[in-house]
């Protein structure tokens, strides 16, 4: 599971490096997410720009990630590909997660000027 964390002001941008979040990788996603966000204080923006496929197991892992952050830290999604967006819509999870077109939009929404 490739995941990297980049602090941008008060926001942490978590970039997923894999092109699929599916049943084969869902548990690794959850474990890696838990480790990488252990010391994060503020909101987390999950950058899904590289992810071209998300199935229900992958979605379950994203929901689990949301719960790991608890009520005091937000989890927002950014840069959804058409396939990922479709799953979010069909399951109505797009009503649960704040979703931004781009990472820059997500940062702007938090009052952080995106790095050039």
């Amino acid at each position: 599971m490739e995941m990297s964390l980049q602090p941008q002001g008060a926001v942490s941008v978590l970039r997923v490096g894999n092109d699929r979040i599916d049943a084969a990788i869902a548990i690794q996603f959850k474990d890696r997410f838990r480790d990488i966000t252990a010391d994060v204080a503020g909101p987390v923006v999950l950058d899904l720009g590289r992810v071209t496929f998300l199935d229900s197991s992958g979605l379950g892992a994203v929901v689990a990630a949301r719960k790991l952050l608890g009520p005091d830290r937000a989890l927002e999604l950014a840069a959804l590909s058409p396939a990922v967006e479709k799953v979010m819509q069909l399951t109505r999870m797009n009503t649960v997660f704040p979703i931004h077109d781009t990472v820059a939009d997500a940062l702007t929404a938090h009052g952080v000027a995106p790095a050039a």
Partner: protein
Amino acid sequence: MTPEPVTQGDLPPPILGWSQSAIIGATSAEVSRALTGLRGNLIRLGLPEDALIRLELVLAEIMNNVVEHAYAGADSGDMTLEASVHGRAIWCHLRDKGRAMPGGKLPCPRRYDLDAMRMDDLPEGGFGWGLIHDLTQGLSYRRVAEENHVRFRIDLDS
């Protein structure tokens, strides 16, 4: 409208005529690999992206269901996927030698009222059959000679 069951005799004449048969080991990693390969093949046929998104999602849900339920506790197993493009649809037939579906029929979709849920109660699974039912046409299941047969089609234009 009740979807008509998909049977071999009903197939419209092939337009693109493409078909593929693959034996896939019953692990989530093999399913992942097979779907990546299938997507590549179908993109080369020039099929619409939305249909390929629906196909890949449905196949992932059905095939991982085979891995996790039909072959639960089994040392090994495999499944055979036959996919073909006829008319304006992708026709699929997946069979496996695992355990039968509970009650001999397809599980019902589970629907959640997310608005009424607290964060801690949000579902981390159970979306699969809802997605399968919503995204397919002519979905059917039969248990024949100790094998599970799931058939469906994905209309290119829906």
